[in-house]
């Protein structure tokens, strides 16, 4: 499941779509870590990987997209 998700992240060529898929991938990883009995890591991965990182990617894209008017 995580492997499949990682593959889609890489294959998503268009960065906008990729940001979304990364967010899902972060969430999937977070859940996987819960299965691994690692609550601390799961919490931080979910918070960071599913929220903060895609946020930064979207902002970077806004700057890059916005630039090409």
């Amino acid at each position: 499941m995580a492997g499949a998700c990682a593959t889609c992240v890489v294959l998503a060529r268009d960065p906008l779509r990729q940001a979304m898929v990364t967010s899902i991938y972060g969430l999937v990883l977070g859940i996987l870590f819960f299965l691994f009995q690692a609550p601390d890591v799961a919490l931080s991965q979910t918070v960071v990987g599913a929220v903060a990182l895609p946020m930064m990617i979207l902002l970077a894209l806004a700057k890059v997209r916005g630039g090409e008017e």
Partner: protein
Amino acid sequence: MSFLPYAVAVWIVGVGLYGIVTSRDLVHLVICLSVMQSASYLVLLSIGYVKDASAPVFADVPLGTRAVDPVVQALTLTDVVVGTTVTALLLALSVQAHKRYGTLDPRRLRPGRATRRHG
């Protein structure tokens, strides 16, 4: 069952590296790098896993029950932070590179050959 998590981690490394080499867009390249980083979390955590053991938090569970290895989790926690901050730094670099080079394709980012975007 015993080799699956490692196999998945190795697959993610391969996919991440493939993404980096063939990427056309710098932001895409940075995301593939962070995907590859996540493979290291998988490897670390699957090493420390103990079958049918509880999480290493003893708030409710009596002391001494079989627990998963806490050191590995501390390492992964640090690794998550490191992976995220490096990705953020690289995103900042690519935004600035876009402004300076006008393009995000790493192929055309050559030293001393900035394509100033005109109008």
